[in-house]
């Protein structure tokens, strides 16, 4: 599967992306002419020191933030050209976000959290219900539909968050340190879940992580340093054959 992704179509293409912040009158180049290609079905890991701009990059790729210059073409769409309203609609169709702190809505049950993105689709109540149950079943929480986030463990919360990201069957998933707040066992099971999504359902995943073990599970690892991405030799795994 991993090897095969190299031949597939490019799903995200970022070219010469620049993102700066001004701090105390000084301009900081967080992304400095960054290029990136992500192919369909690929699981890409991003590493880098804290403050190197990993979250900023995910936000740009997911249409949450605008770069100062450069282009992001996702699934054939130049997302920089979209109005903020259209961009919101585009996000709801194409991107599933997974956060380090899960970001479930505490007053809603697991079921309602997963149903939330489906409210933006044209599905009726019964179709939504089927979709929510499928997504929660997929992450192994079919028995916890009506639990509130504070009645779930961290690992379970992250599973609900993943179900929410999956519910609309988006084009790709963006995960920002999805195991960063979990103990080793829960982290491993979340990674197993992501592996299943990637391998069996062909989900494209871009995952930021600080954890080398998490990075190991991905097909490809890139390092973000000084505003650009560097390809990294993998420990324990041979680099993928190029194109062939």
């Amino acid at each position: 599967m991993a090897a095969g992704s190299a031949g597939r179509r490019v799903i995200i293409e970022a070219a010469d992306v620049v993102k700066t912040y001004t701090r105390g009158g000084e301009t900081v180049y967080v992304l400095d002419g960054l290029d990136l290609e992500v192919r369909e079905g690929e699981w890409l890991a991003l590493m880098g020191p804290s403050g190197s701009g990993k979250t900023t990059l995910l936000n740009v790729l997911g249409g949450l933030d605008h770069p100062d210059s450069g282009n992001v073409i996702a699934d054939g769409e130049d997302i920089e050209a979209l109005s903020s309203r259209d961009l919101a609609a585009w996000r709801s169709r194409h991107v599933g976000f997974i956060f380090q702190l899960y970001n479930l809505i505490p007053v809603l049950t697991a079921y309602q959290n997963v149903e939330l993105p489906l409210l933006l689709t044209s599905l009726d109540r019964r179709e939504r219900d089927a979709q929510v149950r499928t997504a929660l079943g997929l992450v192994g929480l079919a028995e916890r539909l009506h639990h509130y986030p504070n009645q779930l463990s961290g690992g379970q919360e992250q599973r609900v968050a993943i179900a929410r990201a999956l519910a609309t069957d988006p084009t790709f998933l963006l995960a920002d340190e999805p195991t960063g707040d979990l103990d080793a066992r829960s982290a491993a099971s979340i990674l197993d879940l992501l592996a299943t999504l990637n391998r069996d359902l062909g989900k494209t995943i871009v995952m930021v992580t600080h954890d080398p073990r998490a990075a190991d599970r991905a097909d490809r690892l890139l390092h973000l340093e000084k505003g650009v991405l560097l390809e990294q030799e993998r420990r324990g795994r041979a680099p993928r054959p190029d194109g062939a």
Partner: protein
Amino acid sequence: MTPWMLIPAHVRRSPLRSFLTVGSVAIAIFLFCLLRTVVTGIEATVSKTSSTRVITSSAVSLFVNLPVSMWDKIRAVDGVRAVTHWTWFGGVYVDPKEFFARFSVDPPSFREVYGDRHPGGAIYLLAEEEWTAFERERTACIAGADIAEKYGWKVGDRIPMQGTIYPGDYEFTLRGIYRTSNASFDQQTLFFHWKYLDEMQGGIGSVSTFTSDLESPELAPLVAGSVDSQFSSSANRCITLTEQAFQAQFVAMWGNYTLFLSFIGGAVLVAAFMVTLNTLLLNARERVTEVGVLKTLGFPDASIGLLNLAEGVALCGLGGLCGVGFSLAVEPALFSVLKAFVPTFSILPETSAAALCIATALGLLSGAIPGVMAARIPVVRALRRVG
């Protein structure tokens, strides 16, 4: 497009906070209804009265009487259809604390001007036999339904009364219990024969006021002018006013009071607004991440703003409904408490409607501020707040 289920979910998750917000609006709206009703009650007294009646009283003071001999002269003025007179009695019934108005009147002319013989319809509603019984018997009296109910009086009862301004032991026989057709006239007055009073005093020969009923309302200035000028050089200078203007004299005393009440009402509403706004801002602060998540998922900014606005309207609207509902429920109880101070107390539909509009406006206003803030915060900033 808008995740409405978040509103009940939030309300359920912080029931105390929601209850306190709804409660503060409910109390403010209740007070608004109460104060506004006192004001409308006072205003109604002035505006609802007919101007086919004009009232002549002493130019010196309301407490100075006029000689009864003026009666015939007023009756003779052009445009006057009938004239009756009222005399303030005072007196004590059982205990000085049991206070209600008592007037001695001339029943036949009273009936002409205020009763079933008035061509424009009666103010004081009594059955024909009751009017006749009242006219026929020298010691007969009639009483308003409110005091009759309060004291448990029935037709035929004897009502003892001790004179104060006009000393003596009086005893009246109740011959009718009236209601009024117009809210400007209370149902808490006792009327008896002036002749009985005159006899008991061995001839008082005077009355407090004359009420003249005119052929038509436009004649009021003309009649007033000719009555007043007739007596202008006598010892009994008098002043003739329309019934409306006459009552306004009393209401003028209330004038500053209504302003004061309106001021209190306004202040309470402002306080409720601040409480609600404070709660909603607090809510908004706690929900910044939620806003970030909703935006990430693709909910448009406008939906998120609308959600805040709707929450404000829902909380304040509920508070408004509770406030109006409560004031309607306790209306009769309130009237019995306030009877001594206000002529009428009935919550007008306009007052209820205004109260609900104000509650909605409070909600819109206090929901708009966090709503605009939530709609405008960039998604990245909302997510970074905590994460």
